């Protein structure tokens, strides 16, 4: 029988790869070899290199890189763009290569039986030389082209994995896959490294590439399940976005802040909550950007810091719009009350946007964040990717205890909902609807607070007007129904009185 202590003590080694330690509940199983399988171009080599690089940077570990495919020269050159100066680490004795890459033009004949004892001796030598804690082998498939007898390779790799365990080294072994959803790896590699398997994917989904990582199994230890999107950023490497792993543990504040519009505050029962997410939905030209402007102005007046992400209009246009309503964005920026980040959604993938936005928020430390509009981001992603983005962003904002104001454009002029609303409505705390109302051949505008979590709010649909000084909310529509569905029906005054008398 195995000693009892071995059963319950699966310790993990923190990798330092952003997000990975979260989805893996602490890192890689210590002293074990983990298989990282993926198709060509799925970032296996980056993962294997980053695991070592973060070990040196964050934990001062010594590392060994066994390369089967690319030459050390190529790896040094390819990885410098992530800010990993391998040559420097080699000079410092922190990084050692074991070069098993094929030599062009080298003739090899086979005569009789052999094993890979020399490879094992070299790996052990490299580990002992620098007292390495981490090791990566990338990528195992290439050795099958050098050694023709694959059964020897398999049994020898088993021996190497066993030896690494004896040496207490935590290792990564990468292997190729031929398809995104199918066999774990080529050559049956997973048969000898069965305990821990990670799959990295680079899937084409609705004409967009989407990278994900999945921990298939970690024997005897907990981890998050399913695929997690990740992105690769120059100068940083892989960043995993642990979306569904987010816990709903943020605090709730009862502190109210002004929306920047006194009448709006009144409708919301005294203003927005300090750490809430507010969605403003409306058709184009309905005053969403105006509400954002008032929201920012209100914050600035209160000596708060506001961050505005604009995905529909350029900087100059935003400045002009705001000055039309008497708000001087440029001055606010000078006073460090405001930061405008205006980019087109198409410049980056959604994962990259999320990471840049998080960074901006961390850097500027705003108390108010506005996004105008969230629905502009819909068009650069699949629905699934968009949903993950929205969840990731809102939970991040809530954790920072920042109030977030998002706008969403409805696809039709009268009523209707957008994809944004469908995915975000349950995670927002408040929803404000802006609607066009057609009455006797005239366009009127209606506003209503559809939902306000944790507070009483005005249930009326009120008429509002927009002029050079901003938004003015007026009286409720009384003799009209069907505004939200986009089919306003006008009732006569006597009908209204009759209904009133009924109750």
């Amino acid at each position, binding site marked *: 029988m195995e000693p009892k202590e071995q059963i319950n003590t699966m310790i993990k080694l923190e990798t330092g790869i952003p997000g990975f330690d979260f989805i893996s509940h602490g890192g890689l199983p210590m002293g074990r070899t983990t298989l990282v399988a993926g198709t060509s171009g799925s970032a296996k080599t980056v993962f294997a290199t980053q695991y070592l690089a973060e070990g040196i940077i964050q934990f001062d570990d010594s590392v060994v890189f066994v390369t089967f495919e690319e030459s050390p020269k190529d790896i040094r050159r390819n990885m410098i763009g992530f800010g990993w100066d391998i040559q420097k680490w080699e000079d410092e004795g922190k990084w050692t290569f074991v070069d098993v890459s094929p030599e062009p033009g080298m003739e090899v004949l086979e005569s009789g039986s052999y094993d890979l*004892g020399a490879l094992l*001796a070299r790996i052990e030598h490299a580990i002992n030389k620098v007292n390495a804690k981490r090791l990566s082998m990338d990528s195992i498939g290439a050795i099958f082209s050098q050694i023709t007898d694959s059964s020897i390779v398999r049994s020898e790799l088993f021996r190497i994995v066993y030896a690494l365990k004896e040496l207490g080294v935590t290792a990564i072994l990468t292997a190729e896959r031929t398809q995104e959803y199918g066999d774990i790896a080529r050559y049956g590699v997973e048969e000898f490294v069965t305990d821990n398997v990670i799959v990295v994917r680079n899937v084409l989904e609705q004409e967009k590439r989407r990278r994900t990582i999945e921990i298939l199994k970690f024997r005897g230890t907990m981890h998050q399940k399913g695929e997690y999107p990740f992105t690769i950023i120059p100068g940083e490497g892989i960043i995993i976005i642990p979306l569904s792993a987010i816990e709903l543990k943020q605090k709730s504040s009862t502190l109210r802040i002004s929306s920047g519009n006194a009448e709006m505050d009144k409708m919301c029962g005294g203003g927005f909550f300090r750490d809430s997410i507010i969605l403003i939905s409306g058709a184009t030209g309905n005053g969403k950007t105006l509400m954002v402007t008032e929201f920012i102005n209100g914050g600035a007046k209160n000596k708060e810091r506001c961050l505005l992400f604009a995905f529909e209009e350029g900087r100059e246009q935003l400045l002009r719009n705001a000055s039309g309503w008497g708000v001087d964005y440029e001055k606010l920026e000078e006073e460090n009350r405001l930061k405008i980040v205006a980019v087109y959604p198409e410049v980056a993938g959604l994962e990259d946007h999320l990471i840049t936005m998080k960074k901006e928020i961390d850097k500027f430390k705003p108390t108010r964040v506005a996004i105008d509009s969230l629905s502009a981001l819909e068009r650069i992603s699949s629905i699934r990717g968009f949903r993950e983005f929205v969840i990731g962003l809102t939970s991040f904002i809530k954790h920072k205890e920042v109030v977030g104001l998002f706008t969403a454009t409805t696809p039709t002029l009268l009523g209707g909902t957008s994809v944004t609303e469908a995915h975000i409505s349950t995670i927002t705390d408040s929803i404000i609807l802006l609607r066009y109302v057609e009455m006797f051949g005239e366009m009127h505008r209606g506003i209503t607070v559809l939902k306000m979590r944790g507070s009483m709010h005005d249930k009326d649909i009120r008429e509002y007007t927009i002029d050079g000084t901003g938004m003015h909310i007026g009286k409720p529509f009384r003799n009209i129904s069907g505004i939200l569905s986009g089919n306003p029906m006008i009732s006569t005054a006597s009908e209204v009185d009759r209904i009133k008398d009924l109750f």
Partner: protein
Amino acid sequence: MGKHTLKLYVTGQTPRSQRAIANIREICEKETDGEYELIVIDVLENPQLAEDEKIIATPTLVKFLPPPLRRIIGDLSNQEKVLLGLDLFPNKKNR
């Protein structure tokens, strides 16, 4: 034909290592008229030498001279392959 310069990389004193050493000595004695230099390297004792020469499998025989540089992996029990790899032709007097 010039002198053969050979290195044989083995792992420890295993039967396979000894077999490889015996096989190459026999072939060289017979086919080069003793005109050869053989260095046996135990990679367990000198792993850096294996690293420098990028040796993966053991035993590996490397022919440095005459050119071209060539490798033969295995215990060298297939004589024909070894002769081919070393560019040697069976000595006529032994026929």
